[in-house]
């Protein structure tokens, strides 16, 4: 072919013909498409084309591309006319016809976009109807006529296939003086349309999305709408443009030339704005760059989607997922193991695992999929979408298990990086200060936003995983499936792990067996310095080797554990997943109190008065009786869904086994009414033991290779922790003060951050901070009185001998310490305070907490001195102690009270 002929082929003069030819193909493909497209069920009928009806998909693609080319070539054709000044030669009627063609052409295009029936189309429909309605007087009629007045697509469909098509055709015939386009022009556009229709097949948008994009020729208007407060102006501008083009023919050469320039500049600017809006606007109207991973510019299917699916697939009957077709069902409808609410037949695969629900090609269908949908970085698109659990996701985001706020605050306080151990932090936002690298090295793995990297059942090393950290239970069948999948023996998972409310203690164990070690304490395991080699022939009743190599020895387990209670039997969803409030420390987030269940006078609630979440949980557990009285937390009003009040008894039904336990009310023997005991919390007498480490040292080694638990990457520089001794003694007691209620409370403490820190050779510091800790080693029987009154550890002095020495009728307490003084503060290594001393400042990991002051120590030791002669159940002594006010005058002459 000669160069000239190519020139002619693509020359401007051809645009009119090409445009008409494209329109003609568009009409033909439209007619063919009408046989498979169902406007009443448009989304699904297009989905079916994409999945199974490949000829229809191809016809739709041709229809789409011929329409786009029709629009483009029409625009070029108009420009062509204007540039060549041919408008003067055209008959007036033809000119008017051409001008009228423009709005009809736009309508035909946009109505086609709306007929997709997807989320974008619905939003588009809302917009156009609002814009038209804002035209005074006739707006409603125009919008009703063009788009109907209901959400049905019926009117649009009729107008699309008949009104607009007919008008455009008639006007085109009038303008071009041809009933059908020439064979030559058809031959020119067909290859182009065919090629585009094969390689870029238009899709539909899948879900409600925070990104809404109009068709490419309207993204400019969408952007203009953003900047323009009065959107109806665009209609007037469009009208003005039409008038402008119209008048070009009737103005003199100079004026028409100027007008054309204005129109051309307008067109160029509009194109630029459109390109900007198409490629640089993202989710929630944020600015993005098109090469960004999250950018979702325009979605097309590729040629591979035109492959005819296997016959077997065509015959398969699959369920609709919430009224929509989901291609995953063609291969995965046999997945079982999920409860009704998460069953694949109800919610499909896509809503959790993402991917492409409109493809039967394995690779395409699985692209963008997540195997771990519980991870908090995807949960907004999976578990937390607006149709599922958005509220919970927000709560979880603020909960301490996600933020680790308390851990961070205390750590920064210990390292001297903040003035108080309070404040609100989030582990995701920490930087690289010494305290922060310390957290990264040692603690930062234990939070819910730590991503689970691959599907796996929970074990002792599991950390994070968002929703699945708690709610995913692998059954033996699903473990077998996973193994087979890994070994290549199976192609897909059939036995899905259960998504469940039955959160076992194993789910909590990984993280909570560290630091305060409540998970191991609860089960009665205490950490030792033994290592795995020391316990090769391990006696499993006495020792337990954890997966991380630590060896624990058997101690008394918590009375609730003995009874078979799991963590979730006490700790409810508003504690574990948070209640939407940001708390600085765990004791503020916990709702449960011992007296909620151990009382004769419980607070109760019936199901119909509960919050929706609690009701939903009861429904899942098939608890329908509206007369049952459930116990509520006295402090917060949150119901315990497994604990009821019936016939004067409080009965807890264990969530795992269904076994029923009866809680005993507080014993009449409880010494709370003894003076000074009224501010003691239950744990002070009922804690059997608490784990305590002595002689901790934390040092930074700048050259050593370490591990950043937040990013899960290797680092240069590492913090190492060494400890000397582990004890499982009765805890130390101290006082917490609540500024709100102005009440103080005696509670249990353990060494929290008692450690020397070497940030570098020259930068050393020492901290002696005790932490309030509920050890989870509760015993039904209270500890003997001497455990507090005559015990140097309980009083805060540390280990050693605390003796009451009487000389010449004078009694004096003497303490000989076990550990030598630490040089930095001249206190024994395991002490909180010096013997009969007041504490210095900064002694606890919390504000408003402190060890006993001298006055309090003296009072406690005074009773301790009684206990050196009297048995603790000595009625005479108890009578004196119970009498108010207690004065020394009430004592026998034989009593020798201590002098100080």
């Amino acid at each position, binding site marked *: 072919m000669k160069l000239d002929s190519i020139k002619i082929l693509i020359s401007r003069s051809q645009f009119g013909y090409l445009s008409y030819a494209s329109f003609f193909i568009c009409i033909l493909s439209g007619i063919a498409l009408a046989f498979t497209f169902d406007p009443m069920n448009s989304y699904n009928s297009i989905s079916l084309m994409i999945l199974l009806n490949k000829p229809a998909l191809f016809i739709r693609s041709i229809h789409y591309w011929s329409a786009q080319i029709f629009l483009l070539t029409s625009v070029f054709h108009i420009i062509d006319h204007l540039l060549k000044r041919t408008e003067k030669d055209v008959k007036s009627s033809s000119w008017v016809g051409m001008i009228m063609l423009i709005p009809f052409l736009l309508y035909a295009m946009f109505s086609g976009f709306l007929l997709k029936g997807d989320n974008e189309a*619905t*939003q588009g429909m*809302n*917009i156009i*109807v*609002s*814009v038209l309605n804002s035209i005074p007087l006739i707006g*409603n*009629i125009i919008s*009703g*006529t063009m788009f*109907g*007045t*209901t*959400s049905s697509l019926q009117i649009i469909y009729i107008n699309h296939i008949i009104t607009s098509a007919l008008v455009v055709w008639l006007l085109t015939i009038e303008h071009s003086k041809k009933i059908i386009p020439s064979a030559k022009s058809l031959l020119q556009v067909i290859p182009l349309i065919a090629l585009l229709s094969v390689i870029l097949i238009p899709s539909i948008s899948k879900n*409600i*999305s*925070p*990104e*809404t994009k109009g068709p490419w020729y309207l993204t400019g208007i*969408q952007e203009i*709408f*953003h*900047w*323009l*407060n009065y*959107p109806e102006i665009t209609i007037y501008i469009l009208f003005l443009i039409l008038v402008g083009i119209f008048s070009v023919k009737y103005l003199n050469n100079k004026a028409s030339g100027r007008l054309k320039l204005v129109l051309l500049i307008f067109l160029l600017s509009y194109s630029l704005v459109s390109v900007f809006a198409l490629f640089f606007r993202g*989710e*929630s*109207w944020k600015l993005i760059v098109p090469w960004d991973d999250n950018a979702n510019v325009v979605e097309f299917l590729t040629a591979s989607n035109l492959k005819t699916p296997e016959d077997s697939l065509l015959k398969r009957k699959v369920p609709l997922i919430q009224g929509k077709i989901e291609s995953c069902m063609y291969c995965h409808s046999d997945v079982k193991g999920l409860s009704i609410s998460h069953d694949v037949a109800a919610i499909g695969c896509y809503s959790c695992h993402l991917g492409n629900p409109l493809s039967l090609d394995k690779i395409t269908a699985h692209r963008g999929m997540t195997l771990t949908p519980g991870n908090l970085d995807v949960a907004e698109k999976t578990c937390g979408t*607006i149709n599922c659990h*958005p*509220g*919970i996701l*927000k*709560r979880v985001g603020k909960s301490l298990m996600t933020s680790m706020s308390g851990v961070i605050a205390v750590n920064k306080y210990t390292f001297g990086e903040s003035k108080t151990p309070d404040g609100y932090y989030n582990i995701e936002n920490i930087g690289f200060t010494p305290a922060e690298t310390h957290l990264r090295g040692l603690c930062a793995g234990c939070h819910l936003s730590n991503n689970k990297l691959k599907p796996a059942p929970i074990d002792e090393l599991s950390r994070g995983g968002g929703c699945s950290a708690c709610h995913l239970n692998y059954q033996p069948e699903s473990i077998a499936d996973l193994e087979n999948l890994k070994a290549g023996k199976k192609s897909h998972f059939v036995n899905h792990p259960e998504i469940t409310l039955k959160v076992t203690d194993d789910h909590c164990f990984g993280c909570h067996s560290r630091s305060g070690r409540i998970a191991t304490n609860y089960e009665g395991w205490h950490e030792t310095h033994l290592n795995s080699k020391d316990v090769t022939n391990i006696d499993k009743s006495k020792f337990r080797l954890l997966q991380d190599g630590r060896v624990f020895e058997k101690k008394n387990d918590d009375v609730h554990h003995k009874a078979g209670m799991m963590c979730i039997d006490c700790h409810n969803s508003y504690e574990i997943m948070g*209640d*939407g*409030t940001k708390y600085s420390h765990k004791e503020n987030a916990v709702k449960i109190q011992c007296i909620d269940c151990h009382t004769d006078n419980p607070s109760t609630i019936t199901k*119909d*008065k*509960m*919050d*929706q*979440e*609690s*009701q939903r949980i009861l429904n899942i557990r098939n608890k329908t009786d509206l007369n049952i009285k459930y116990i509520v937390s006295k402090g917060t009003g949150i119901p315990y869904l497994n604990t009821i009040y019936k016939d004067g008894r409080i009965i807890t039904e264990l969530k795992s086994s269904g076994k029923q336990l009866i809680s005993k009310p507080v014993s009449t023997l409880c010494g709370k009414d003894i003076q000074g005991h009224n501010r003691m919390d239950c744990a002070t007498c009922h804690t059997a033991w608490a784990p305590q480490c002595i002689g901790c040292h934390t040092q930074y080694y700048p050259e050593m290779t370490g591990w950043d638990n937040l990013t899960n990457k290797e680092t240069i520089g590492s913090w190492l922790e060494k400890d000397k001794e582990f004890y499982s003694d009765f805890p130390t007691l101290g006082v917490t003060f609540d500024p709100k209620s102005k009440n103080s409370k005696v509670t249990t403490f353990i060494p929290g951050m008692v450690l020397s820190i070497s940030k570098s050779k020259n930068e050393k510091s020492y901290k002696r901070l005790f932490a309030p800790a509920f050890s989870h080693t509760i015993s039904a029987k209270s500890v003997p009185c001497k455990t507090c009154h005559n015990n140097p550890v309980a009083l805060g002095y540390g280990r050693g001998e605390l003796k009451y020495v009487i000389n010449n009728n004078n009694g004096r307490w003497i303490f000989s310490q076990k550990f030598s003084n630490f040089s930095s503060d001249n206190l024994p290594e395991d002490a909180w305070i010096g013997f009969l001393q007041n504490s210095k400042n900064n002694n606890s990991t919390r504000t408003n907490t402190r060890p006993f002051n001298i006055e309090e120590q003296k009072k406690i030791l005074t009773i301790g001195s009684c206990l050196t002669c009297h048995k603790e159940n000595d009625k005479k002594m108890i009578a004196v102690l119970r009498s108010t006010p207690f004065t020394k005058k009430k004592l026998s002459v034989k009593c020798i009270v201590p002098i100080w």
Partner: protein
Amino acid sequence: MELITRKAFLKTIIGITGSFLAYLFYKSLKINDHIVSSNRVQSVIKNDFPEGFSFINDIILVKKNQKIEIFSDKCTHLGCKINKSSGTELVCSCHGSKFSDNGQVISGPALKNLKKISFQLDNLRNVIILNNEA
């Protein structure tokens, strides 16, 4: 003498019939309109929403310090469904209007605040009763 030509007569008849049809058409649109706008019946929802935004069907419920406010999820700019919040703001995905958690416009193009939906709290049953829009 003819009072009126045949052509003129025909034109008049066509004109009258056409106007009548146009009137009927106009009326028919109005009736459909009516069905749409009275679509919302009084509805009852359980009152157990977390702090922050909750998107329920066609409303957005905002709970702040235990206080509830309910808004229509229709953006006041051009009626898109708002389905996304970021921090304490609602963002419309169509043209980026931003609304605060009390429904007020933070930045345009929307000019009007989100439409408040009135409701009553039934503390006894712990439910929220949304009032009919009409």
